[in-house]
């Protein structure tokens, strides 16, 4: 399959047109998505109009940008003005946002063609895309398996070749885990590097938008486009987007990479073997690989499942049936609020709202939320110590390859454990990337994860490129 960079080059040269690429993507979705359900909404009209603008620019001798004509998919928690945006929830069914997320504006400004909105776990809460109010997405490599989540629709759309790039959001691993399970690259940047304006909030101190792509270079070019300060997000870092493409071939010679025991322990033997093989690849490329232990990482899961629900319970208070979305009519306001939220939210969202409300409630705040925030400090300090010894850290992305649909839906704690290796980087705010590296015993893809300190994206992509170049097929 052709990469996004190659597609954009062909459009810029005039060898192909954005319109033909958009038509190709729409045809691939029409042919393949019935079996996968990666898309909640396909915007054929909008895609073709955007493609015509790119083609007109090329015809006028203008450069449409580094993603000229590249079909992209947007996770459906990214607001798109006038185009339905549901967060896979009944409570936002039919909503058409009055504004567009900054990342979408930037993609379009770089010539990309958004073709549709992809499925997710409701409000990005989940690890399998089974919590969608609009039915699960299936893994394109094996339809009996989940694509991971919560950005499972974007991961599946990229893995199936419907689009070259998908945008996801990552609060506890929601870009990296589905990318690993579908066999694509997934990149969670440093917190604040990408504007969250127009991202439907789940846990604001953890949420970060990033790309899913088939190559490290495609993920890098996408991040270059969407990153950089945005005055509309008060947590946006006040610095320009990093330059990544020129770091892709820097290699890892002379770098020290820490193979972290806590990012491997508890994973399946085939996943563990893939991580070990990736360590050998990095060593062969000139890096020094050292084994490390960061015991505080074991606390990440517990801290996360108090902090994220606490923030979610506050963020989701806005869905009250007053200004947008679903309303279930009642004679008084409170009854209307209760009826609307009870009908509009799915099981997992209710679970997390209640967990978060409890963790924040009088008498329990210090024991749960307060304690989790202190553990967050412990974990960040442990990362800082680790980065005193190693330039990057290495581990598994997910404990297993893609699991079967329904395998974990009745046991929330088992589902939460899917995120055990990805959560630490969200709590610290640091960048992390998953790269496909071979297959498991079941023939399904395995992803390995590279973690770096804040603003180390250039190092991360260089190491990821080394792994991609050597990855077993």
């Amino acid at each position, binding site marked *: 399959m052709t990469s996004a960079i190659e597609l954009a080059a062909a459009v810029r040269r005039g060898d192909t047109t954005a319109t033909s690429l958009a038509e190709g993507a729409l045809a691939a979705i029409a042919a393949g998505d019935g079996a996968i359900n990666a898309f909640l909404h396909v915007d054929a009209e909008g895609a073709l109009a955007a493609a015509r603008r790119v083609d007109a620019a090329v015809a006028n001798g203008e450069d449409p940008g580094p993603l000229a004509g590249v079909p992209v998919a947007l996770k459906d928690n990214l607001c798109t003005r006038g185009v339905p945006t549901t967060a896979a929830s009944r409570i936002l069914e039919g909503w058409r946002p009055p504004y567009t997320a900054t990342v979408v504006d930037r993609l379009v400004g770089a010539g990309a063609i958004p073709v549709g909105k992809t499925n997710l776990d409701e409000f990005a809460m989940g690890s399998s895309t089974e919590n969608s109010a609009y039915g699960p997405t299936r893994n394109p490599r094996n339809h009996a398996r989940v694509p991971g989540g919560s950005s499972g629709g974007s991961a599946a759309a990229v893995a199936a070749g419907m689009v070259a790039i998908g945008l996801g959001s990552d609060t506890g691993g929601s870009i990296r885990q589905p990318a690993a399970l579908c066999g694509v690259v997934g990149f969670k940047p440093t917190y604040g590097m990408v504007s969250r304006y127009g991202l439907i909030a789940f846990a604001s101190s953890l949420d970060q938008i990033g790309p899913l792509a088939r190559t490290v270079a495609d993920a890098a070019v996408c991040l270059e486009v969407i990153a950089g300060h945005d005055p509309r997000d008060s947590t946006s870092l006040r610095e320009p987007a990093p330059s990544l493409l020129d770091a892709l071939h820097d290699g890892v010679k002379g770098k020290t990479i820490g193979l972290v025991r806590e990012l491997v322990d508890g994973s399946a033997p085939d996943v563990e073997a893939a991580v070990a093989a990736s360590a050998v690849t990095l060593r062969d490329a000139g890096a020094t690989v050292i084994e490390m232990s960061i015991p505080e990482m074991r606390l990440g899961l517990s801290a996360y499942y108090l902090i994220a629900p606490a923030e979610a319970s506050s963020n989701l208070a806005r869905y*009250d049936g007053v200004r947008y979305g679903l*309303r279930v009519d009642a004679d008084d*306001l409170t009854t209307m609020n209760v009826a609307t939220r*009870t009908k509009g939210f799915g099981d997992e969202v209710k679970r997390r709202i209640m967990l978060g409300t*409890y963790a924040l409630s009088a008498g329990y705040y210090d*024991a749960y939320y307060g304690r989790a*925030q*202190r553990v967050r400090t412990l974990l*960040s300090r442990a990362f800082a110590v680790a980065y005193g010894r190693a330039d990057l850290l290495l581990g598994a992305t997910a404990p297993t390859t893609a699991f079967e649909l329904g395998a974990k839906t009745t046991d*929330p704690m088992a589902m939460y454990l899917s995120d055990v290796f990805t959560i630490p980087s969200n709590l610290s705010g640091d960048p992390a990337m998953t790269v496909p590296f071979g297959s498991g015993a079941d023939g399904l893809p395995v992803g390995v994860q590279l973690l770096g300190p804040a603003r180390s994206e250039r190092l991360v992509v260089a190491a990821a490129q080394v792994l991609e170049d050597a990855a077993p097929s």
Partner: protein
Amino acid sequence: MTSLSRDDVAHVARLARLALSDEELERYTDQLRAVLDHARDLEAFDLEATPPTAHPFAADPYLRDDVIVNGLDRDEVLAQAPAVEDERFCVPQIIGDAP
């Protein structure tokens, strides 16, 4: 930390404006208790001297330049509301007896 009870779950559901059936109350109590039990691993650490982290990077607050920009389009926003009256969001009666 004490063990989560059905009454606790019923209380937070009221706070969160959610109605639960008896069956849901039972199920959610078991599921939330499992998550909170798992979180007991946090109790093993002496955290008195460790400050809390609310946000990954404690950025200095800043103000954007004082430039006039357009807000959202009023009609476009109101078009998405479940009920509108006289260019305002309309809700069921709040004060006094409901009709």
